[in-house]
């Protein structure tokens, strides 16, 4: 063979080998089969939780935010268990004229990347390090004083819904990074309100997490109940102006794998706020029960007895109900898309004889 023939032959063989390699590399089956065989680690089950779904045993990893086999990491943006029944009444003092003054400190930050769903991290913008921020609570007529510190890298404010002077509205007094402001106003009218950052682009500041709930109790407290706060929210983690995750109190499906324990026949009061960005509506549907709905919480007379309330962004209400029968009951958005992207939870109704440990936070303090 001449030299040129040899060269051609060698290059032929080389190119055939390399294309064969490319074919093998792209034909996933080969490695997939190999992977099935060489696993001696423990097997895990996935699926099979829902009707009609077969279970699958895997030697690989489980991706399951619904049943939380993934588990939240330490850098989770909040603990929905703790947040649910936490109410911040502020540092209490009395003004010279005898009015109760409640002082709160809210610190805004926009630099943290934290876990918002098992295994998914996102640049959250927070009040006091969590999304949603702390639930502020006062009684009608109290003086609210919020010391606001902007610890972030861009301007932020606090805009509270309710009745107050223009300069306490958190719209025109932009607080730059490192800046501070004191918002002071009387708590009126009783009800449930959102608070949120009001810096443009508003959509960005809200969708990243700068919001929370603010409750004003009537002077005569509502009847004692097992009280909880639920903020309906979501996250657009790939910035296509559509939410990838939905939930109440941030973590998708959290109350599915950590059902909320309540007592049979005991009054439950949910302070519900819709802060969902991008979607026009959101709603709250309760299984096996009806609730008294107090729209905006500004009346002591219920507006409706229902199992469904639909809210646009910023709308809110108080839901009161008690369960007649023990067992597990779902609550979720009846926009099933949201429900199947995380906005689903469970109430675990127990007979009072079984439940001694439930926190019994009354209507007052």
């Amino acid at each position: 063979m001449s030299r040129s023939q040899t060269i051609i032959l060698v290059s032929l063989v080389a190119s055939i080998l390399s294309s064969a390699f490319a074919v093998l590399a792209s034909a996933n089956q080969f490695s997939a089969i190999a992977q099935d065989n060489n696993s001696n680690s423990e097997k895990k089950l996935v699926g099979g939780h829902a009707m009609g779904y077969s279970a699958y045993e895997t030697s690989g990893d489980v991706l399951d935010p619904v049943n939380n086999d993934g588990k939240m990491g330490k850098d989770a943006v909040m603990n929905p268990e703790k947040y649910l029944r936490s109410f911040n009444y502020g540092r209490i003092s009395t003004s010279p004229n005898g009015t109760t003054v409640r002082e709160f400190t809210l610190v805004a930050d926009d630099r943290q990347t934290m876990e918002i769903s098992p295994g998914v991290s996102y640049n959250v913008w927070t009040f006091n390090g969590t999304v949603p921020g702390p639930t502020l609570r006062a009684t009608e007529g109290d003086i609210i004083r919020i010391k606001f510190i902007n610890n972030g890298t861009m301007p932020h404010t606090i805009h509270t819904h309710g009745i107050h002077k223009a300069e306490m509205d958190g719209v025109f007094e932009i607080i730059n990074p490192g800046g501070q402001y004191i918002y002071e106003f009387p708590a009126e009218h009783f009800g449930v309100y959102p608070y949120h950052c009001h810096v443009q682009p508003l959509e960005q500041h809200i969708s990243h997490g700068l919001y929370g709930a603010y409750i004003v109790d009537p002077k005569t407290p509502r009847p004692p109940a097992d009280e909880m706060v639920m903020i309906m929210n979501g996250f657009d983690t790939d910035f296509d102006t559509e939410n990838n995750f939905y939930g109440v109190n941030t973590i998708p499906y959290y109350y599915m794998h950590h059902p909320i324990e309540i007592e049979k026949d005991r009054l439950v009061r949910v302070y519900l706020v819709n802060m969902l960005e991008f979607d026009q509506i959101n709603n709250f549907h309760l299984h096996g029960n009806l609730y008294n709905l107090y729209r905006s919480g500004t009346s002591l007379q219920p507006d409706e007895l229902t199992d469904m309330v639909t809210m646009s962004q910023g709308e809110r209400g108080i839901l009161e109900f008690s369960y007649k029968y023990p067992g597990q009951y779902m609550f979720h958005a009846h926009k099933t898309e949201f429900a199947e992207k995380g906005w689903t939870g469970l109430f675990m109704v127990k007979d009072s004889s079984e439940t001694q440990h439930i926190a019994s936070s009354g209507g007052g303090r």
Partner: protein
Amino acid sequence: MEKENDQLKGPNEKRLSAVRMVAVALIPIVVLAAMIAYLLGPGQSLLNTGTPLPEVSIERIEFHEGQIVALVRNTGPIDVTVAQADVNDRIHPAAIEPSKELPRLAEAKVIIPFPWSAGEPYEIGITTSDGTRFSKGVTAAAPAPAPSIEQASFFALVGTYVGIIPVLIGLMWFPFIRRVGSNAYRFFLSLTAGLLVFLGIDALVESNGIAAENIAGVFNGQILIVMITIFSFLTLQYISEKLVGRAQMKLASGSTTRVQTERQELIRPVAIALMISIGIGLHNFGEGLAIGAAVVLGQVALGTFLIIGFTLHNTTEGLAIAAPLAKIDRRRAMIRKLLVMGMIAGAPIIVGTWIGGFLYSPIAAIIFLSIGAGAIFQVVFAIYSWMSRADITRTRILSDAYALSGFAVGMGIMYATGLLVPS
């Protein structure tokens, strides 16, 4: 060889020993390695700007009993961790094997237990740990063909109908073409060339579509098509020249009897017909991959109408093989040659459907389609260069009305029958 080397050297250059030659050749590589080591180590901070974005490609989606399986690959510039899977943008529990951690170019199998319904469209999504979602749609869910005897024989039956039978039917034009006059013969040879050019372009367009839709940018699918087509053309040109040249040399070395001259005349048309059948065989292999994959991907319901379309479309391929052989005076031996060539051209479609259906790989598909395209263009080149030399057809192709109209009619036939086949 010695002489050649000496001529290439300048007068002042001294010959280096083999070891020193290797050493000299390695110097730039060593320097390059040192630079990369520096950039990965202390030099790292100098060049890091911007945020590298993750990219995950879903290469294949299969529907199994009660589960959907997606084969995913990290085709981006950084390692990724997969956080969740979804069906139609709704989160579903899933398993990922071997691991949710995907280094660059690594692949994984995502298994989603899901009661899917045949015939419905689905979109499968994968979300990485930074919340980015990557998705791929399937037009209509169809159960993944398991490599069983039944499935294999079904594909073989389909392949026989769309590949082998039409080519053999086309070969039955052989006696007709034998009897046509010289002008008509040039018309039919050019018609063959027209058919082939259409097939070649079709293969390029099809592989381009696969590259654009199913192959991640990192694999440079479109460049691969051009590379392989050119390489296939040149290689087949080289091989056919060598084969014909060697055969002619053998014959020429003996005395020139009447029989041998006749044989010599025979070699080129037979070689051309063989190359045509190999080229068409490669094309049909690619077509088989596409049919098998389309069945898996749920894009095609293989119905009678579709099979009739493929049959009409492929019948002309038999004509292409028969035409160059038609004017050879040895009818008896030709029949067997024709049958063999028909099988070479038609049978690969069956193997193609098996591979396409059972282990579909988009890269394999474009490689074979491009090899087929190169082979087909080489055959067209061979037909025209032979037509301009052979005694029966000797003519200036570009100024021949019969050749021109044949070429146009060939392409037109393919276009018209192609309307019966969804692409």
